């Protein structure tokens, strides 16, 4: 099991001052799914964007490194980085509708990647696209290839996007809340599919989500974030049954569960948030 992604001391800062991600380190090995959990503003999406090199203009990586199979992505030239992106690092977006170009057929969008990154011919790429759709268990893949995104259901679109992510046999896939927009029954199918594909191809996955339930079902390792800081990190067993950080424990207690009555629900105490906010402030004081 070799290390695919090795983020060390990553600090993402606003250009006009202030930090969004505060010295985060995490590792993802071959065949592992690493969950990045947190609420809005915790910095989880910023970390994913930093890896993909798509940070907004107002934001930059100020210190730290993002090691990918031994090379620091941050030191690569834009050209070499682009060659890696899509070929070695792929993503599954949150919104299955906006993740696809509405005006192009599925086949065109799928073969683009194959032809561009793998230099396949048109016929070859179509054959491979078909094989990929079969692999993600889409019914009638022949017909789906010639459809437009709006002709597919949300779950089908997400399957297409998963097929596209795995098309180039990447070593790392960044999945940004890939099931948030789906109904629960579809979510389960999609989670199962991501797990199957990832196991079959031995892909490392950085899985961004706000849902501890989803994390429990699909991740091997977890990093819990709050205000851009790592509050808890470890194996899924450790985090689910043995969490040390007050925030992780509070978050678990604040997650409603259909198998527990109402009085089992306890909102996260304000003091827990405040302690972490204070820690962030102290960090900023030390690292202007």
């Amino acid at each position, binding site marked *: 099991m070799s290390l695919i992604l090795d983020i060390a001391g990553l600090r993402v800062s606003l250009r006009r001052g202030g930090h969004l991600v505060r010295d985060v380190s995490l590792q993802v090995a071959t065949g592992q799914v690493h969950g990045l959990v947190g609420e809005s503003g915790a910095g989880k999406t910023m970390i994913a964007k930093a890896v993909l090199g798509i940070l907004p203009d107002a934001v930059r990586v100020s210190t730290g490194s993002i090691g990918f199979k031994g090379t620091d992505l941050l030191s690569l030239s834009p050209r070499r980085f682009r060659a890696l992106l899509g070929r070695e690092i792929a993503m599954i977006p949150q919104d299955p509708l906006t993740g696809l170009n509405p005006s192009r057929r599925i086949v065109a969008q799928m073969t683009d990647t194959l032809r561009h990154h793998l230099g396949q011919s048109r016929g070859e790429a179509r054959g491979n696209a078909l094989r990929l759709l079969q692999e993600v268990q889409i019914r009638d893949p022949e017909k789906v290839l010639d459809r437009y995104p709006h002709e597919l259901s949300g779950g089908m679109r997400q399957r297409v996007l998963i097929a596209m992510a795995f098309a180039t046999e990447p070593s790392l896939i960044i999945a940004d809340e890939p099931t948030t927009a789906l109904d629960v*029954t579809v979510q389960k199918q999609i989670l199962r599919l991501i797990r199957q594909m990832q196991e079959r191809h031995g892909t490392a996955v950085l899985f961004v989500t706000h849902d501890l339930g989803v994390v429990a079902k699909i991740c091997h390792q977890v990093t819990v974030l709050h205000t851009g800081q790592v509050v808890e990190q470890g194996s899924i067993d450790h985090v689910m049954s043995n969490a040390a950080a007050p925030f992780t424990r509070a978050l678990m207690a604040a997650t409603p569960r259909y198998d527990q009555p109402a009085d089992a629900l306890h909102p996260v105490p304000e003091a827990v948030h405040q302690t972490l906010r204070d820690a962030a402030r102290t960090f900023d004081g030390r690292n202007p």
Partner: protein
Amino acid sequence: MTGPLLQVRDLTLSLPDRSRAPLFGRPPLVDIVNGISLDLAVGQSLGIVGESGSGKTSLGRCLVRLYPPTSGTIRFGGTDITDASEAVMRPIRKDLQMIFQDPQSSLNPRRTVGQIVAQPVLALSVETDRRAALKRADAALDRAGLGHAFAARYPHELSGGQRQRVGIARAIATEPRLIVADEIVSGLDVSTQAQILALLNDLKQDMGLSLIFISHDLSVVRVLADQVMVMLGGRVVEEGAASAVFDHPRHAYTRELIDAVPLPVIDPEWLNAEQAGGGTKMAEIKGQTVLVTGTSRGIGKVFVDQLLAAGAAKVYAATRSGGGSHADNRVVPVKLDITSATDIAAAARDCADVTVLVNNAGINHNSKLLATDQAGAAAAEMETNYLGTLNMCRAFAPVITDNGGGAIVNMASILARVNLPLMGSLCASKAAVYSMTQGIRAELASQGVAVFAVLPGAVDTDMTKDFPPPKAAPADIVAEVLAGMQAGEADIYPGDMAKGVSGGLAADRPGVIAEMAGYV
């Protein structure tokens, strides 16, 4: 007061389906909410769960009369508000408030928080003086845990959770008796969500508020609801006390929904576990192309109408003569005798877009098994009921698979499970249909085709004119079949008689058989 605070009977809401609008004229209507009944007592809370397209949001909007219901009745506090005009509604609205889904769009960006919360107070004449109304708004903001200091702020200056608190403050400002809350925590972080849920729980207890809580999230519903209603395709598939529904779901769809919720618990088997309900998947009627056999009369005829009402895109209405016409242009008459191999082959070719096949055609000669003079009748029953249905399945299974999956519905009978001496050979043919249906279900399990067996009791058609009452109305039977299909019940027992017999067979098999043997 006596009686429920809110009483809903047979509520149906149909809206125009713009996706199928013709070039000229009105788009066809589709049922968004279909035959909903519910009672809500004072201080009680009802959770409505369902996935997208289940009609839960439309139902909520119907209840506060944002949408006018198409049929049925809504009584609130004893007053019939089904067709009440806005003028009649206004004094009622004080007691009947709503909290909306999207706190971003439900607050007017050009008004201050104070003005927003005071608006219903003034317009519903809870206070007539502006200053008093604003004071009441301040109190409501305090009550909603936001603090009246926020009254001067604008919505865009607030976080998502704070905006939702404004929505709550607006709803409680008139001190209503019932609040309908539609997906009010779906966009919020877990820690904010828990706060909002706790707040609603407090309000419910302190103000004696009744609550209808609509959500796609079963876990969230569990927190607030005493009663739960599970919706699918505009209908209720299961309802009952929250603890009963969540701990012992009866319905396949409810089980599937519950099993799909990822609890924050490690469960290595969860991802691989098959969906509840065995091999049978639910089928959606809306947008399907359906072929129904034997539509010249009886149940078949009713099937055509109800399929159209449920939003079927096209219905091939097969009759032996191929005649007949229908007012709805989605109906295509087909000539099809299911004992004719040529007819079946032609139908499979001509109706190549079928996604749902309803094998309804069948005959009954009231023949006894051992009567030698009725051997021909017995053979004919077998040929039509069993072989005809089998040949239809054989011809259409590949058609349906080619079209991306769908459903096959075989009309058997409760007589498939218990033989009635008066019509022994019919019973045998129906038992064959039932057995064959189970076999086909297994063969098609992995190909996305749901296979349903329908086992109704006596239905009031001319085929059963010799059969003594009680007989169910064909319309009710078909409605239950469609609901059962959408709910994913593999074997559908429509009507009280069928349910009774099937229940009896499970509990006291010899007793039922003895009773049936003596029947007629």
